[in-house]
């Protein structure tokens, strides 16, 4: 129980730092704007009560907003992703939260966890960019930006994951 939470908090701190210091300065013709911080919310255990989970999303989004000067967009998207997560997870995984509360590579395997994170990040980016632009007119631009940014975000997380968890074991 304890090591699970220290692990999650460690991931939370790292993704926040990566977001604030690295990902925020990526802007290639405005098409890449990766948000890696929702990974923390996506990896939280599934047996947290929905309302409490959304509150965590709210406050985590607020912290990110303060550091990234995004004024509310982080909160809105984080709350959205915490609300939508059970439905997103049901798409690819059929075990109930009571059966398996933890989401981790050790239990579900690398493929499934990364697929789940990718779907979560796509939903997050889609919502974020829609709210940020505030109009439906440029739907193709938003879709392209969503796809590119979420791919880059998952790649960033994969790099972090390999550096921290995979490499030391191979020694």
């Amino acid at each position, binding site marked *: 129980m304890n090591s699970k939470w220290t692990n999650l908090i460690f991931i939370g701190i790292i993704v926040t730092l990566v977001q604030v210091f690295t990902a925020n300065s990526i802007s290639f013709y405005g*098409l890449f704007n990766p948000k890696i911080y929702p990974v923390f919310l996506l990896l939280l255990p599934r047996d947290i009560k929905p309302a409490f989970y*959304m509150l965590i999303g709210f406050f985590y989004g607020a912290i990110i907003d303060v550091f990234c*000067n995004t*004024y509310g967009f982080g*909160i809105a998207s984080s709350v959205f992703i915490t609300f939508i997560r059970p439905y997103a997870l049901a798409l690819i995984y059929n075990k109930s939260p009571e059966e398996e509360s933890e989401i981790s590579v050790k239990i579900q395997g690398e493929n499934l966890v990364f697929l789940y994170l990718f779907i979560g990040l796509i939903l997050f980016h889609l919502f974020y960019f829609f709210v940020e632009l505030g109009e439906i007119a440029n739907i193709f631009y938003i879709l392209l930006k969503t796809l590119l940014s979420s791919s880059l975000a998952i790649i960033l997380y994969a790099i972090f994951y390999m550096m921290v968890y995979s490499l030391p074991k191979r020694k």
Partner: protein
Amino acid sequence: MGNIIVIFQRAFPFLVFILLQSIAFYIIFKYNDYHQANIISRSNYLAASFNEKLTDITSFINMPVQNESLVKENARLREELYRVSKYIQSASGDSMVEKLKLSIPATTRVVPGKVVSNTIANLRNYVIINKGRKDGIKKDMSAISNSGPVGIVIDVTENYCCIMSILNKDANVSVRNRTTKNVGQLRWKGGDIKTALLEEVPKHIKLKKGEIIETSGYSSYYPEGIPVGTVEKYSEDSKSNFANIKVRLYSDFSKLKYVYLIENIERQEVRAIEDTIVKIQKAEN
């Protein structure tokens, strides 16, 4: 009765979702407006001082590049200073220079500042500077870098100020063509951070690629004649009366480290007149 409780229990997460989302959208609408972004008050003091420490490290690494651009700017200013003083001296005697110094009222005040945090990836970007109320920074002052305008001060705390960058969907800069003096509005609509759009230029004014665009001084935020960028692409649209012009900006916002905060002392007066005009227009309607 039992049914109502069950329904409520089922709907509870959704209700929480709606509540939290409304708070989020309230924050979005309140703080992303051009004149009402007054967020950095307390919460951001922590973030700003944290970011400042990090900026110290990165600016140390970037020192050679920054030094070079500062030296260049110094050289340009010195050149201008010599030219002006020579011109004055040739026009009149030495004593005239002294007289001029006394009689020209100071209309602008310049405060140098260092960038503490800067966003470029969003549609609404903000820059935070390590100068605040105690350095005499006020709301509506403008910020320029050595390569062009940066933005307008929208919020001031004791030690920091928040600038709405020109790379912000809601910001616009009044600009003109350096040679013909035709005025237009410079706006940024997302995408590439090195180009912006020049709007409200009628079709009959043809601009060539490479023409210099500078600030017009009409908005009374930025001083007149600061180079902003060059025309990159000029095209006409049959649907509207205005041309589509793409401007390549001189400033590279991803490398922004130092800015000058400029206060136009006469701005208050200009603003007062503008306000009366608005009032008269309203009364007429």
